[in-house]
């Protein structure tokens, strides 16, 4: 120890403390830069890894992943009709993605968006028939408001239970999801059943439907995409504006960021919780409405293929950014639209897309995994740099 001392003194020529401090500072700044870069890159890396995992799963079943994914691409972006199908499937996901993202921003995990979606769909199917005879410009807004309210109502009790007694919203919204599904299953088979044997509600009149884009803009080749996607984009910008520029959004973000600090700062955490979960429910309710008004024009048991749950993946992939939700929804819409072609052309079960979805949630949710993986790569590659 004593023998080495002179060397150390000679090396640090000017002020050793200052030099070390500067070096540490540089190191911290570098770390922060890397962390930010990884954070931005995570969604992209996650999708890439998820596709890789999907390929391995396909390979394990003895099928050709390249053929599978190229079939999937053809089925989702191969032509106007396919792109229309992608947008059609992205539409409810924009709304459920926004619903889950808004919840996350205020520190709430609305895992039960599926149930609120069912309630919204139910309201749309019912009010849509009730307002028959009214002009389109009146009935469509009325239906949307009703569906939004129905979704909010279904989120209200879980919200109240969270705010008042701290019951975890993951369990309560999930339970309400099951209750909602059984309620719909009863409504379509009993009090609001259409004539005939199939349990479904009556067809909506034309004035209650969302028209296809190719019917409005006749220069577009016929496809199934409907006006709902435009509403979805508008909704995304509205949510972005609420979060960024309104008191409501500020309070939601503050509570999501640090409830204790928010409470100390004079924001009512309980009130904000109720408001945020109800807004989330409204958005999920709208998802059900656009699906009923734009695609099926009536309500039946299987009208949602788990849009509420895919909404979680959409929100996470978008890092809860409302505009990012649009892109993430289109990605998942494309996966879903292309899955059929993949099954047909490459003989791969379309369930593989929920594996991809799960991996994406896992990787984006656990950003640390990507950080860890990147860190390991850097360690191996940059071993010499670090030694200097």
């Amino acid at each position, binding site marked *: 120890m004593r023998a080495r001392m002179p060397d150390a003194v000679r090396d640090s020529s000017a002020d050793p403390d200052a030099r070390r401090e500067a070096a540490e500072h540089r190191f911290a700044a570098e770390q922060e830069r890397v962390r930010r870069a990884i954070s931005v890159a995570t969604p992209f890396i996650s999708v890439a890894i998820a596709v890789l995992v999907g390929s391995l*799963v396909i390979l394990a*079943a003895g099928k050709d992943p390249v053929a599978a994914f190229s079939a999937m691409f053809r089925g989702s972006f191969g032509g106007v009709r396919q792109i229309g199908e992608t947008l059609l499937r992205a539409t409810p996901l924009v709304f459920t993605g926004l619903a889950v993202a808004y919840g996350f921003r205020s520190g709430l*995990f609305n*895992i039960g968006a599926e149930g609120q979606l069912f309630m919204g769909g139910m309201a749309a199917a019912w009010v849509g028939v009730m307002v028959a005879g009214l002009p389109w410009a009146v009935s469509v807004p009325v239906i949307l408001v009703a569906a939004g309210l129905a979704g909010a109502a279904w989120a209200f*009790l879980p919200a109240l*239970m969270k705010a*008042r*007694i*701290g*019951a*975890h919203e*993951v*369990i*309560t919204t*999930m*339970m*309400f999801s*099951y*209750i909602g599904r*059984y*309620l719909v*299953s*009863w409504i379509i*088979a*009993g009090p609001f059943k259409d004539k005939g044997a199939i349990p479904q509600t009556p067809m909506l009149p034309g004035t209650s439907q969302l028209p296809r884009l190719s019917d409005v803009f006749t220069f577009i080749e016929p496809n199934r995409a409907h006006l709902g996607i435009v509403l979805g984009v508008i909704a995304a910008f509205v949510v972005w504006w609420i979060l960024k520029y309104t008191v409501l959004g500020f309070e939601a973000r503050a509570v999501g960021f640090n409830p204790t600090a928010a409470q100390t700062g004079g924001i009512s955490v309980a009130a904000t919780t109720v408001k945020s979960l109800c807004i989330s429910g409204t958005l999920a309710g709208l998802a059900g409405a656009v699906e009923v008004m734009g695609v099926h024009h009536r309500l039946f048991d299987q009208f949602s293929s788990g849009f509420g*749950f895919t909404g*979680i*993946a959409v929100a*996470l992939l978008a890092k809860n950014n409302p505009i990012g939700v649009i892109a993430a929804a289109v990605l998942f819409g494309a996966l879903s639209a292309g899955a059929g072609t993949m099954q047909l052309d490459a003989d791969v*079960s379309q*369930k*593989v*897309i*929920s*594996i*991809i*979805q*799960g*991996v994406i*949630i*896992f990787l984006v*949710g*656990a*950003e*640390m*995994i990507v950080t*860890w993986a990147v860190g390991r790569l850097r360690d191996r590659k940059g071993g010499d740099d670090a030694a200097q």
Partner: protein
Amino acid sequence: MLLSDIITPELFASAVRLATPIALAAVGASICERSGVVNIAMEGLMLIAAFSGTAVALLSGSTWLGVLAAVVASMAFASLHAWASINLRADQVISGTAINILALGTTGYLMETVFGHPGTTDPVRTIRPVFDFPSGGSGALATVWTWVDTVLFSYTPIVYFGMFAAVFLTWALYRTRWGLRLRSLGEHPRAADTVGIDVYRGRWSAVLASGFMAGLAGANLTLEQVGSFTEGMTNGRGFIALAAMIFGRWVPGGGYLAALLFGFADALQLKLQIFSDVIDIPPQFFLMLPYVLTVVVLAGVVGRAVAPAAVGKPYKAKG
């Protein structure tokens, strides 16, 4: 319809049977959360186990090999959750959700790849009850014996294991060094670390234990009860188990008793559906009952139930 038609020994036995998957998961989740790790993936773990158990039992012809496969598969997915939430300090709720969705996708995919069709597998030979006592004649004594035999001695092995685990783990949680250490991890991991308890290792074993219990829950569901696998068949039981865990105040035995309540509600609604011509209520409302009950239970009890202080919070070991 008489009350004696509804209140039969079979009703209580059916309650215990229906409660078992929920109870096993609730006991497992209690252990997991006591260590400070939220395990919302119980639903997915049960589903994975249910599928693996059935598939292996069908392909190998051995039901017990199926049970083993169920436990192994569930623990494998549980270790994914452990790795993400303990080592990588991921958001535990999100990691759990990912596993739930992954489980739904994986079982659906394997269903179609292995069996060539979606939906339900072929039936598998279920595990027999442990005891098989003869029913005794007639008279008051025979009635008493029927009650005792049905309510206490009519179950399959995993059902008994669930009861044993609930009692044993409740004792162990409060009376052994292991239990004290486990609780310290969930209450104050820094303090536990300071006195030399390996936080990561403790939490890993707790998550794996919950995976083990979820595995048995899935095996019980398919290999002891239903006798086949259907996609999405766990149907929210994993989430109900979490409610049972909370109702039972994070004590294994409490979770078991709470699960019995859900099992009883389920058994009752099944029984009442038989009398649908007498009671004119649509079946959907009966089916809702367990979920409504969960909400009611949470509304009534949660305010007073206190979760482990450090549950859900990632812990970063120094150095």
